């Protein structure tokens, strides 16, 4: 057997480079080798579901010739007997940067941002590089290949991990012997994309995820337009993109939310991306499943936090603790829900960590068969290479692993990884297992010896007369070398033994005593019951897997185990602020049914209703915040002076705790506005704060269309270092609007004419404004610019819908009334920048006096929690009536948002979005006791109390679990403190 093995090795080295037979040869004669290699008596996993218990794998020229229980072995076959061992197809990693050098970061941008592309002849955006090819950059990295081979991988799909469109990948076999001519299975294996900008360019657009999404959409439109021959100029990027169209498109998502975002972009253009997941998909598995996207799953499970320090641990969030507890169950959850996925070593510091994480996923319930599929057949199939890789069927590459047993068991040794018929020995599979307990006697004394550990790190414990002898042991080439101290422990003397193994697992050799005497040495091995040992370890494992805590919606503190249900509710004896002609009704009942206000009156009854005694309490319509930045992952696309193409609807964050906190302040609807970085901002999302629902379900059905515009210091970039972007003055702002609207008008005319045109998402959106299909909410401060924008709108024959902030609205209130624009303002903010020097808290009252529809907004996650009280300030500043003041945060913002047919007042037939207050709703003493949206209770003071206790308990349990993990010797990571940044108008993404 050993002989066979050595021969095999020699044979391997002498094999010629078949692929290059047309190359000249100057170092000898040209040879050809037509021999076969057969691995016999192995348990062969031809595919994850097709297993041959005692089979033969016959290979030739790097490919599988046959695999099966009875394979005819040709005469010119080199036979390797691998009895008792298992053979698996080698693993495939389809998301890798193997052998592709990471691009260098472009040094800093200097004084001002860079808005234009640095290249010509390519797409206008540097971050779009479909023309890039990983094959051109590819250079085989033997060191990394070794790690990958050790982890069981045989083939990787590598790409340049940089930019939004990243170009094509290269499918490479980890063949250490041959050159790239053999290794490269496919030089254009897939096209890769992401939301992240390239580090090689400082071009500022896109600066946000929504910008990346918009860029990709426009890119697809442009590529199609280019393909039809409409461009007068050459664009190498678009040409490459069109060329790569037929390839598999692989998208770097990196999180549950981004998987959904990527899928949304692809779906609109008929592209089903294969998406790199983030590991948190289990949080909203239903939505992930609904994408129908195949995923590439990293298994970089977080280490437990080091919770030794109680002070620091107090800062750790429940959601971070849960991530540690729940993430290892992600592969199982995806498998249970039939989501197709491949596994990747991406995100791990090194491929060396792969097995431990994979074992963890399995211990959390991922089946071994699924695991094997995710590493072999699934990636092969996703890459369209099922006939070449991923199985050991005839004709496939001879990429396989030889293991001591089940490849997904902790104790299993991976002996060899063959790639394209080339063997890499990882552990010597012919080495004997010498561990065990032995008995021997020397010079009349009997000894017990126990050998433990890996063959390369063997340890011995030798006792005689129940006294332990000091010993050293090594095992090399089937020779065991032992040195032990002699009986007299006061002397530094050693007995040396050298022995090798016999057929029956005994040790046979000689012993040399300190005095030079030589004895023959024979040690017999004790036989042990293997079964008992292995079942014992299984039991231990099941103890090890910690309890996975249940997911809540959303999966953070105050998330709910189930979404709240619509109820029939009867409020008895409340003070009802109708916001309608009825005014404020004392001692009145309100019935809510099927999510709507059903009845308002006295002595109402309904047998099916839950009765709520509202005596001494106030019932109002839910608070509506016209200007919010909560529940969004990004706020500004600041990369250009117009960003009409982006939409906040693309970047909703359904687990922002500020949503819950706003509910606790009686808020039920908000408009999430784009920021004020640009004169023309992005499109809004108008949502209901249905805490627990997924991002898409928050958005209003048939939502009115809005876009944010902005004026003043932010858009002219007055308060930070930027001097290169037009406009830098209010004069320029006007011209920018006129220019864009002129272009939109021409564009719209061409579009309507039926002639061919290049579809432009940005101009589509602006044309909607001209066609009165989309409303503008414009960030504004000083009277000059407010007046200017109304005049620009007049010129283009439309109305500005809302001026938001509008702190000098009081100076042009009558003009605003005349134009028909509403004012959504702060109650009392001022003096934070020069343009709010003349902001006064009487602004709302004066605009109201002039007949303008006035709302009080927040632009701030803290202030929005008490927007009712901010409205109360208008009573103080300017003497607005209490009834009107409450409308400033309910009915009026509903009017401004064109949702007043659904919400904003307590009127039969409207959505049952109501708040029960403990006190007068404008008073500082009022607390929201219940906040109800469409008849479902999303906030309840009593439930909140209960949740606090539950959160405390769950955190203690998880801290305990983490302490146990540390005690077991598992790695830990330092505590981090989760923090939700307070987003304002001028907040930019950090990317």
């Amino acid at each position: 057997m050993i002989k066979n093995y050595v021969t095999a090795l020699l044979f391997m080295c002498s094999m010629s480079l078949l692929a290059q037979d047309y190359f000249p040869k100057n170092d000898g004669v040209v040879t050809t080798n037509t021999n076969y290699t057969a691995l016999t008596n192995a348990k062969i996993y031809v595919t994850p579901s097709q297993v041959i218990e005692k089979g033969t794998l016959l290979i030739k020229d790097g490919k599988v010739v046959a695999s099966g229980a009875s394979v005819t072995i040709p005469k010119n076959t080199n036979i390797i007997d691998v009895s008792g061992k298992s053979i698996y197809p080698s693993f495939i990693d389809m998301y890798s940067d193997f052998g592709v050098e990471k691009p260098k970061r472009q040094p800093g941008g200097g004084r001002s941002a860079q808005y234009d592309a640095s290249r010509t002849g390519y797409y206008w955006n540097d971050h779009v590089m479909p023309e890039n090819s990983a094959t051109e950059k590819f250079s085989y990295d033997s060191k990394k290949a070794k790690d990958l081979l050790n982890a069981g991988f045989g083939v990787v799909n590598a790409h340049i991990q940089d930019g939004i469109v990243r170009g094509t990948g290269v499918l490479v076999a980890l063949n250490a012997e041959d050159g790239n001519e053999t290794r490269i299975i496919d030089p254009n294996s897939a096209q890769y994309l992401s939301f992240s900008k390239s580090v090689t360019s400082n071009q500022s657009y896109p600066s946000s995820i929504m910008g990346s999404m918009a860029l990709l959409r426009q890119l697809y439109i442009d590529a199609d337009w280019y393909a039809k021959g409409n461009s007068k100029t050459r664009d190498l990027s678009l040409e490459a993109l069109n060329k790569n169209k037929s390839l598999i498109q692989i998208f770097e998502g990196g999180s549950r939310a981004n998987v959904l975002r990527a899928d949304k972009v692809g779906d609109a253009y008929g592209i089903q991306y294969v998406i790199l997941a983030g590991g948190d998909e289990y949080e909203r598995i239903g939505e992930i499943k609904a994408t129908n996207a195949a995923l590439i799953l990293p298994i970089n499970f977080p280490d437990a936090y080091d919770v030794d320090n109680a002070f620091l641990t107090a800062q750790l969030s429940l959601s971070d603790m849960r991530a540690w507890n729940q993430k290892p169950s992600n592969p199982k959850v995806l498998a249970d829900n039939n989501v197709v996925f491949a596994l990747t070593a991406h995100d791990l510091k090194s491929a060396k960590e792969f097995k431990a994480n994979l074992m963890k996923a399995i211990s959390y319930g991922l089946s071994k068969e699924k695991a094997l599929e995710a590493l072999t057949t699934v990636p092969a199939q996703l890459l369209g290479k099922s006939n070449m890789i991923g199985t050991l069927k005839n004709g496939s590459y001879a990429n396989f692993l030889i293991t001591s047993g089940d490849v997904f068991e902790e104790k299993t040794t991976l002996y060899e990884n063959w790639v394209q018929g080339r063997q890499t020995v990882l552990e010597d599979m012919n080495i004997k297992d010498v561990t065990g307990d032995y008995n021997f006697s020397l010079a009349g004394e009997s000894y017990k010896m126990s050998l433990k550990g890996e063959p390369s790190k063997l340890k011995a414990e030798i006792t005689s007369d129940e006294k332990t002898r000091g010993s050293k042991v090594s095992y090399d080439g089937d020779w065991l070398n032992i040195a032990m101290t002699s009986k007299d422990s006061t002397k530094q003397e050693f007995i040396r033994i050298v022995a090798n193994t016999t057929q029956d697992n005994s040790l046979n050799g000689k012993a040399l005593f300190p005095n030079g005497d030589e004895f023959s040495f024979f040690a017999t091995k004790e036989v042990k019951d293997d079964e008992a040992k292995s079942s014992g370890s299984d039991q231990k494992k099941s103890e090890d897997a910690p309890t996975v805590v249940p997911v809540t919606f959303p999966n953070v503190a105050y998330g709910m185990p189930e979404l709240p249900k619509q109820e029939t509710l009867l409020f008895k004896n409340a003070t009802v602020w109708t916001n309608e002609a009825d005014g404020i009704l004392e001692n009145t009942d309100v019935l809510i049914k099927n999510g709507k206000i059903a009845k308002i009156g006295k002595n109402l009854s309904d047998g099916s209703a839950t009765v709520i005694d509202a005596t001494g309490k106030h019932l109002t319509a839910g608070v509506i915040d016209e200007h919010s930045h909560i529940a969004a992952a990004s706020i500004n696309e600041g990369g250009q002076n117009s960003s009409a193409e982006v939409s906040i609807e693309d970047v909703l964050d359904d687990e922002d705790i500020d949503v819950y906190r706003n509910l606790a302040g009686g808020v039920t609807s908000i408009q999430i506005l784009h920021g004020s970085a640009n004169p023309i901002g992005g499109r809004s999302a108008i949502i209901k704060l249905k805490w627990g629902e997924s991002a898409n379900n928050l958005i209003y059905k048939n939502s009115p269309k809005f876009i944010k515009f902005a004026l003043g210091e932010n858009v002219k970039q007055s308060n930070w270092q930027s001097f290169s972007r037009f406009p830098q003055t209010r004069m320029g702002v006007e011209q920018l609007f006129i220019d864009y609207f002129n272009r939109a008008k021409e564009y719209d005319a061409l579009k309507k004419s039926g002639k061919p045109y290049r579809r432009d998402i940005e101009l589509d959106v602006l044309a909607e404004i001209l066609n009165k299909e989309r409303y503008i909410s414009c960030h504004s401060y000083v009277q000059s610019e407010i007046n200017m924008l109304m005049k620009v709108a007049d010129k283009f024959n439309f109305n500005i819908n809302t001026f938001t902030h509008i702190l000098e609205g009081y100076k042009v209130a009558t003009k605003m009334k005349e134009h028909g624009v509403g004012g959504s303002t702060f109650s009392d903010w001022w003096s934070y920048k020069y343009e709010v020097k003349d902001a006064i808290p009487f602004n709302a009252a004066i605009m109201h006096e002039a007949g303008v529809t006035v709302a009080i907004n927040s632009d701030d996650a803290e202030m929005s929690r008490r927007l009712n009280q901010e409205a109360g300030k208008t009573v103080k500043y300017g003497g607005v009536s209490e009834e009107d003041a409450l409308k400033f945060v309910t009915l009026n913002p509903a009017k401004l948002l064109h949702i007043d047919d659904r919400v904003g007042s307590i009127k039969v037939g409207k959505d049952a979005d109501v708040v029960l207050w403990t006190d007068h709703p404008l008073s500082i003493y009022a607390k929201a006791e219940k906040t109800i949206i469409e008849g479902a209770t999303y906030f309840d003071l009593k439930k909140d109390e209960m949740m606090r206790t539950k959160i405390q308990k769950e955190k203690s349990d998880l801290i305990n679990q983490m302490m146990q993990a540390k005690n077991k010797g598992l790695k830990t990571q330092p505590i981090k403190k989760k923090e939700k940044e307070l987003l304002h108008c001028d907040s930019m993404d950090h990317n």
Partner: protein
Amino acid sequence: MKKFKILAVFMLCASLAIAQQTPAPKQSKDIAIMGATAHIGNGDVIDNSLIIFKDGKLTTVADATVVKVDMTGLEVINAQGKHVYPGIIVPNTTLGLVEIDAVRATDDDSELGDWNPHIRSLIAYNAESQVVESMRPNGVLLGQVTPRGGVISGTSSIVQFDAWNWEDSAVKIDDGIHLNWPRTFTRGRWWLGEDPGLKINDKYEDQVTEIHNYFDQSKAYANGDQAVKNLPFKATVGIFDGSKKLYIHVEDEKGITDAINFSKANGIQHMVIVGGYEADKVADKLKQNNIAVLLQRVHSRPEREDDDYDQPYKLAKLLVDKGVTVALQVSGQMERMNARNLPFYAGTTVAHGLTKEQALQLITLNPAKILGIDDAYGSLTQGKSATLFISEGDALDMRTNQVTHAFIDGRLVSLETHQTELWQRYLEKVKSEK
């Protein structure tokens, strides 16, 4: 064209002329406020009160149904149905140090360097600030003007909000030194490619040691003959002899505990915690050591995702219940213009557990005690300064806070501001155009 220019110049002058309210002259006539509900500031209320003040000092604060006073020669303000309160005090504020945040030329709150005990806020305090004048119509009449930045930001002073200049505004000069305790967590520098999240500050111990060392040095200097000029050390002497307070700005439980131990180790007589987001966790220790807290902004977001939504709202109640002396402050984003909302911060603590009189104490008598000006300010007490205001209704609620009169040291101060003038002008304009 020329005509326009002249007009423009004229208008500019006009607008400058109205930019400032004239500080009130000394009290010349004795004044009596009759019939108001008097909120004393120490927890007491007199429903039908008689309040008399002469030469800026309160001479009578009594139940009108009980006392008999000769009212001749008194200017009487009938305040039946109205409420009288002591002037509200805003501690730890940058009022008067910054006018407009975004205009750097108007910003004087933060000096270069880490160790600035010698930097004095008082001389930069702009008594004519438009933001300062906007405090008065809400009843906020006094403030502790405090520098920011560094490890030791500098020395604060206490001022009243109706004066010609900083010198006249001073109530207590150089009352204390402000030390920013190291943070347990620091932010990753995202621009260097680090995770922008908060991670453990592994330099914490070093930074604490640095503070210890600095105080050791200062103390050694104080114990010597102080012959050699060392402005920073010299400024700290008062902390050790008890003439100045040490305000330690710190939020977290461990930091507060370490700060208390630090003060004890250094024999500091008057230490105050500023911030104290986690002060409730060490309330017993604060009480034992008789350390007061200038509590972080009531209207703020909970710091951690898991925190109770009302944690900042109810924090005062949690501390008051444990017997800790608490006053409210406003520091944070937009802190200057927000300082006028201090009465409403107190109102919120009522919605979350305190009584109205307890809440009032947090913005009147308690800050006066903590800042060391309670001999003259903080409550409606005979012998104290007549620094008070009259409101049509409950001053802690924005619905009813309608200040009709405000007095500082007996002087009837203007309630007009840049903002009220714009209001009147433009309200007229709108009405005339309707």
